[in-house]
């Protein structure tokens, strides 16, 4: 009975009602779900597998989209310089970008909320140390973190792990430059919740600090963190693209959206407009949708705005 109850309660809840009233949020949600679904099912719905080098040939290079003259029906959105089908490359790329962004978000969430929660709750020296670490992290631009991790991991790990290492490097680099947001938000929310009576009661009863943080405070600060999460998911995807632009990104033979855009940049003026604009438009639509969802969540969790 409780399961149906919870679902029923969710359906009637304030959030869903508000959601049904704002067209932008609905559109954003649909677009996001479509893109994520498309990306996740890439191996099944994409015409070819762009990571399998034998599946495309150089002869089909630089073909315009199918509807343009000179286009090839096999390649709906045309091909890139290598003869890779743009549609498949974008779907696989989106899958890679989204998985990297999601993994980076997860790491940043755990690291940031963990440290932020502890800093806010324990205060004093621990708080100062965490905040100074945050300063150090803010001072290091994402590109440097990527370089640092790439270098260290290349130095420590055996050679044959090097290529699938690159994805881990990028994920960690992005995560490291995002956790500070979560730490600061979590810390600020904990300061507020710590004064509330239900936390004072838990302290008085002698509950273990970890349990107080995890079971009592954390569920109550999920709201603002969720908002940061959606906004940062968008910036994580963009960051991956920028890192690729600066030459620290993913290898070219397993491209992410960012790598596709970097490759596309070389053809900006050379007439093959689709190599750049297809992935860029896809990225923009995805990021705008996620940001709109983030805005909606921010308004939902910010009671004063309702």
């Amino acid at each position, binding site marked *: 009975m409780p399961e149906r109850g919870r679902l029923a309660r969710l359906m009637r809840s304030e959030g869903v009602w508000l959601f049904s009233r704002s067209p932008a949020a609905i559109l954003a949600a649909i677009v996001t779900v479509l893109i994520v679904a498309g990306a996740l099912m890439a191996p099944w719905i994409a015409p070819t597998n762009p990571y*399998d*080098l034998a599946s495309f*040939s*150089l*002869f089909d290079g630089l073909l315009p989209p199918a509807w343009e003259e000179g286009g090839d029906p096999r390649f709906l959105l045309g091909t890139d*310089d290598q*003869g890779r089908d743009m549609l498949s490359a974008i779907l696989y790329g989106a899958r890679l970008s989204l998985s990297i962004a999601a993994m980076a978000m997860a790491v940043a969430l755990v690291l940031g909320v963990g440290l932020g929660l502890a800093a806010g709750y324990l205060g004093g020296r621990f708080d100062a140390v965490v905040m100074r670490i945050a300063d150090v992290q803010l001072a290091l631009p994402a590109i440097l973190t990527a370089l640092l991790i790439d270098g260290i991991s290349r130095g420590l790990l055996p*050679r044959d792990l090097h*290529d699938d290492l690159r994805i881990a490097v990028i994920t960690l680099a992005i995560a490291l430059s995002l956790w500070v947001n979560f730490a600061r938000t979590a810390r600020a929310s904990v300061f507020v919740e710590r004064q509330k009576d239900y936390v004072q009661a838990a302290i008085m009863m002698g509950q273990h600090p970890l349990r107080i943080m995890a079971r009592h405070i954390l569920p109550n600060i999920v709201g603002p963190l969720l908002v940061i999460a959606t906004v940062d998911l968008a910036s994580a995807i963009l960051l991956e693209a920028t890192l690729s632009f600066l030459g620290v990104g993913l290898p070219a033979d397993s491209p992410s959206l960012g790598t596709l855009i970097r490759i596309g*940049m070389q053809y900006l003026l050379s007439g093959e407009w689709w190599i750049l604009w297809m992935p860029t438009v896809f990225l923009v639509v995805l990021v705008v949708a996620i940001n709109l969802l983030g805005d909606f969540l921010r308004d939902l969790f910010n009671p004063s705005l309702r």
Partner: protein
Amino acid sequence: MFNRKIPAAAMALSTTVLLALPAAAETFRWAGTTDPQTMDPHAVNATPVLSFLNNVYEGLVRRGPDMSVQPSLATSWEALPDGAGWRFNLREGVTFHDGSAFDADDVLFSYERGVSEPSDVRSWFASVTDVVRVNDYAVDFLTSAPNPLFPGSIANFMIMDEGWATENGAALPAREAETHATRNANGTGPFMLDARDPGIETRLVPHEAWWDTAEHNLTEAVFTPIGNPATGLAALLSGEIDFISPIPLQDVEQVEQRDGFKVLAGLETRVIMLGFGHDHEALKYSEETTDENPFLDPRVRLAVAKAIDVETIDRVIMRGAAEPASQLLPEGLSGYSEEHSERPEFDPEAARALLEEAGYSDGFSFGLMCPNDRYINDEAVCRAVASMLARIGIDANVNAMPVRGYWDELRAGNFDMYLLGWSPGTFDAEHPVRFLAHTPTERLGTWNFGGYSNERIDALLAPIQSEVDPVARQVMLDEVAGILQEEVAYVPLYTQPLIWAMKENVDVVQRPDNFFMLRWVTVN
């Protein structure tokens, strides 16, 4: 769309330039991807630096538009009896930019500076035992063995004024801290250094008292580095700069169609090739065959050569601007072996057969290491090679990385196959043999990462270097080229194109060594 510019054509252009009298005087603004890191001619032996400084300093000899060796600060030179060295007769009446006179002392001083420890150009004088001052205007370079190509090999050895250098504490190139010569210059060349803002802008003005007649009509030349290719192209198309090199291959067509601009597409003296790990017992990046190295079998290497369709790579990736290569140096350079100018033709079936014959019918996977920002479209070529090899069953996983870490990885042997481009400094066939084919030692074979070794080739290097008779020298070079082709030590792919873009009213001379000489530039 492209007419293949062979060096001879460049010769034709230069003659017309000589006749046309310089018209209106102009400020000439040009850009490149990297800023020359120093103004000291002996500090760094790298093309961007030497090319720029060739406008400010001059050597005893210089190279003409067609790479021929011409007199410069030396009016003439003759070989000393029984190959003991060379005598150079110096030009009289030449003054440095600050007015001081040029004589033999400056040559001796520059030689001492060039072979000093902090200098980076010591390798040019490897065969020189001593330099003797004959009189004010004659100097002898004594070599340990006869060296027929010596004069040509010191074309970039630039002469500094002894007085200026010693007064300003620049007797030696900078070790750790910069010296006066790092940001200032006092040469005898056609242009003087007017202003130097490292990494931002460098300004040259003509040297009025230059000993040679000026063929250019420039009153001022300003160089600015532009790292991002797209921005560089925009700078040209917006008219803010008059000339830029290089521009991306894929933009050549657009620039040519736009009125007011033109493109000069020739060939650089750089051959792009694939190298193997000859001294690797086993593959390092293979998922399955981890106990042996298939590439040790020449048949497998030949299969690789036959599996790669250089024509298609040229058509799609290089837009037809490249030229298939058969050996370690491009056609037209001295010592090129006409005998072995046929490269293994593209035949995937034969390649698969060879693999079968060698016992690898079900193929294997390996690591292909490439730079992604060193040669034109290097990463794209690597990916193309990988997909072609995948067609015959051997899967390359491409690891493209920035060049800054690339040489480290190759030197550490972290590859199964690698991409390499080589441009011979002396524009002669001996150069690639000395650095790529010879067994690696302290001084020789320093870029032979795969550790390829062949006694015959090692034995032939010294004779080639000292053989005076060109015919005998060519026979030996042909033999070396034959062995390399026979054993498929490397798989040469193509000669890299050289793309310069400029405004319609700008005429320049494009030299295959990618040196940009201001003295041949006219803006009309």
